[in-house]
């Protein structure tokens, strides 16, 4: 029924587009997070912009300061240390093309508020879809029961936190974009894909966008509102040759508006989807076993997400269950390895102006000169470690309490050159395109699935390879990253990270790197 309760989902994974949905077992897990047009603090269109109103976007739903103060008072009625309310309105729309026509569309509207009460490191959580005083107070009392003491007063005054960055300012929000403006994009892509290669026999397209906002109000009286757009586009094609079929997908995503779909980007979507499909006719599964692996710049950042990112989320370390729990300030990689988790990349899918606890995210160094430096914190773990929150408190929706989560995770450029790295490998594989990955946080074993790549023989890329899983152990693999090129690419694809049953949008990137040895699934060892 509700997702995330089975043991399976406690594993943490990342997936690409529809793969993420399958992996999460989450039914309609959308590939994005929140929503539209930024019109500055206070009042996007439709809000009440009266002089006394500090509530912008959510005023349209009758949310005002009295409602918030009374709800927070109920939340602290059993003596909780802290409480926050997370209001969310998200309208997600997707249009799909199949068999040459844009003939189906899907819209999901989410409106609700989550109430969290924290006592020590214990959490009470409740939510409601009715933004009325009765419903919200009742949810607050439910969450309040995590504590068992005398009532504490809520905030008397609320103040709007205004110094938030502007990382995804749109010319026009998705709520103002008409379907007629999207349809020609899909129809054009469909025609281009068929034109690109006569072997293409089926094309499907999915164009998704989101508009809406979040509002965090906490018991310190802080109000933070953020309008969060998102869009993604996937082109998937099937090609046929001599009675054989292959398929592949290319996608792009960002917290961006219609202008994201430049002619160059759309051309790339077609080119990549088609070429990644047709090359599969020549591809085979590589030999099985341990071998050197070169990871192409870009989406190979999946390595970082799985090998170290999840293990650095502070909740696992606070519980002592991460393989990195005793490695802070210790060298774990070559000194030219620097890894960050960054919420600041403008218009990136993993960018956020504020996290889902109202904190402003920055660029967080996970590994600096080969030394493990900072965990990824939400407010609970930050309090435990007596550090500032890093702005990693994120959640899928108002139905969930926040957890420490990644944003955009990538490795900084290093001292080597791409060609030099490929030339250094006598027999191994080069991986350029991935669909999904997964990790066991404590044992450290992680995997990622390679859709496209090449064999490397005597320093040269030779035969194409496909459909192979790679498995390694996080800390051991990081030690074996022994060459890092200067060609960092942050992937433009629509990655969704799953943890504890919650999906959130993330980005990832990496320069070309060499892993000296890792186990490649495959055939005929």
């Amino acid at each position, binding site marked *: 029924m509700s997702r995330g309760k089975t043991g399976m989902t406690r594993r943490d994974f990342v997936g690409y587009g529809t793969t993420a949905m399958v992996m999460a077992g989450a039914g309609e897990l959308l590939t994005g997070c929140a929503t539209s047009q930024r019109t500055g603090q206070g009042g996007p269109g439709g809000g009440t912009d009266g002089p006394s109103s500090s509530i912008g976007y959510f005023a349209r739903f009758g949310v005002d300061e009295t409602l918030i103060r009374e709800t927070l008072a109920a939340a602290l009625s059993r003596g909780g240390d802290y409480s926050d309310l997370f209001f969310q309105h998200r309208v997600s729309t997707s249009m799909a093309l199949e068999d040459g*026509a844009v003939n189906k569309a899907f819209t999901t509207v989410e409106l609700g508020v989550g109430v969290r009460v924290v006592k020590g490191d214990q*959490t009470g959580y409740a939510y409601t879809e009715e933004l009325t005083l*009765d419903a919200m107070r009742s949810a607050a009392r439910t969450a309040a029961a995590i504590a068992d003491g005398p009532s504490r007063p809520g905030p008397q005054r609320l103040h709007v936190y205004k110094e938030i960055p502007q990382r995804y300012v749109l010319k026009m929000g998705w709520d103002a974009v008409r379907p007629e403006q999207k349809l020609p994009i899909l129809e054009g892509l469909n025609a281009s894909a068929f034109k690109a290669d006569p072997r293409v026999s089926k094309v499907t397209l999915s164009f998704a966008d989101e508009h809406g906002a979040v509002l965090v109000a906490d018991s310190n009286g802080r109000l933070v509102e953020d309008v969060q757009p998102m869009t993604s586009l996937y082109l998937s094609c*099937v090609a046929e040759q001599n009675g054989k079929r292959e398929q592949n997908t290319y996608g792009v995503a960002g917290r961006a508006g219609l202008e994201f779909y430049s002619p160059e980007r759309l051309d790339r979507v077609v080119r990549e989807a088609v070429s990644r499909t047709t090359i599969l006719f020549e591809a085979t599964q590589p030999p099985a076993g341990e071998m050197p692996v070169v990871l192409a710049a870009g989406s190979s950042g999946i390595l970082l997400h799985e090998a170290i990112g999840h293990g650095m989320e502070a909740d696992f370390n606070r519980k002592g269950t991460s393989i990195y*729990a005793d490695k802070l300030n210790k060298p774990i990689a070559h000194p030219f390895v620097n890894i960050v988790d960054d919420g600041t990349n403008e218009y990136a899918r993993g960018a956020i102006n504020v996290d889902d606890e109202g904190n402003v995210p920055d660029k967080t160094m996970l590994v600096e000169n080969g030394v493990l430096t900072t965990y990824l914190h939400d407010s609970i773990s930050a309090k435990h470690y007596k550090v500032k929150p890093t702005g990693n408190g994120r959640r899928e929706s108002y139905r969930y309490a926040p957890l420490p989560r990644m944003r955009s995770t990538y490795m900084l450029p290093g001292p080597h050159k791409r060609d030099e790295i490929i030339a250094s490998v006598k027999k191994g594989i080069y991986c350029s395109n991935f669909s999904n990955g997964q990790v066991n946080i*404590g*044992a450290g074993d992680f*995997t990622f699935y390679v859709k496209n790549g090449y064999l490397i023989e005597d320093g040269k890329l030779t035969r194409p390879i496909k459909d*192979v899983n790679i498995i390694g152990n996080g800390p051991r693999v990081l030690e074996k990253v022994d060459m890092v090129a200067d060609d960092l690419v942050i992937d433009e694809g629509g990655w969704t990270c799953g943890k504890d049953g919650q999906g959130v949008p993330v980005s990832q990137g990496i320069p070309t790197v060499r892993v000296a040895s890792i186990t490649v699934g495959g055939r005929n060892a």
Partner: protein
Amino acid sequence: MSTTNTTNLADVARQAVDLARQKGASEAAATASRMRDVEVKWRDGRLDKVSEATTRGLSLQLYVEGRYSAVSTSDLRPEALERFISDSIAMTRALARDEHRRLPEPELYEGRTQVDLSLEDPRQATLTADERQSFARELEAGARAADTKGAILSVTTAFGDALRETYRVSSNGFEGGLRGTQFVASADVSAQDSDGRRPEESDYAVARFFENLPDAATLGRRAGERALGRLGSTKGASAVLTMAVDNRAAGRLVSMLLGPMMGGALQQKRSFLDGKLGQKVGSDLLVLTDEPHVKRGLGSRLFDGEGITARPLPLFEGGVLRSYFIDTYYGRKLKARPTTGNPSNLSWKLGGKEQAALLADMKEGILVTSFLGGNSNAVTGDFSFGVQGFRVRGGKLAEPIGEMNISGSQLDFWKRLVAVGNDPYVNSALRTPTLVFEGVQFAGV
């Protein structure tokens, strides 16, 4: 909690269909749903988190002048709902016509059995906060009781229960409701290995009725034993070996077989099973039926998501593919009679032996206890997954192995099924028993 209003779900769905038709839809179907959900998490001797909510929603399929959209909302304020339906219909009008998009033919709604599926346990309404906490606490105690080596680092347990109600109405005569409860208990255990690794394992149970959950101490102990069993795991050598897959893990393999059986995959040429109806794709031991009427079954139903009356559906008989999962839309496109768009419960033709006996027969190989990542290519059948488990030597469990992959092609893999256990996994609607395959490529050292 508060969001439960007393409005009847059937009325919500009927009103939504009426409203959609008033606003210009030629046909419409609506499903109204409500779920009450409570979960208690417990960690290392104390309460960690309690969450509780009642959530609601309405989803609609709109057919407007030969055009189609599917929409849903949690904002059920009357004026908001009216606006939502109007906007959705306007959006639908912008799409291309699709002659295959219509509600199901009404005869597919006929013949619904009146059998009581026993999906709702009245016990759910009387469970107290204390009972939930006690269960979670006893799960931890069970896990720790398994720890003879003092290796357990942390135990997180959870107990949750939910009541879900849905009611569906269509403008061409379908009406039907479903109410069901579900109880979930889980224990996640982390242990300290001598080399710094902290392997984790879990066990969990899911049941429609509270009394069908295993007792907390037993379930917790199994989770503890699973985690401790991981200590000292090593990567084995690359080899072609016999592979047993335990009943819990086997669901992952079956999922990769079911995906390519969907009508959408077939019509879009994304299925290695395209054209294989009536052909042998597995060994004689692959005998599978979709069985919607299992009492207390996790996937049990009287009708599917479109309203099609649920009936048993033979999927594989003696390894021969007998049916696809075809909904009405892809049925029209494929000119095939609809079966149902998705599986309910799987019913396996079970073997006569439990896992220990199967391992004794297999003598040498690997028992896979869980998969990590990996994927399968639905078009070609190629797959590759990360695995962990145990080496089997002399018919008995030997050392734990991990950090290995398996790879193969489904076109060949299911023919290698050489044994099926007598132990269906009841915590999943897939109900997989232990499965044994010979000649599987493992990658390791």
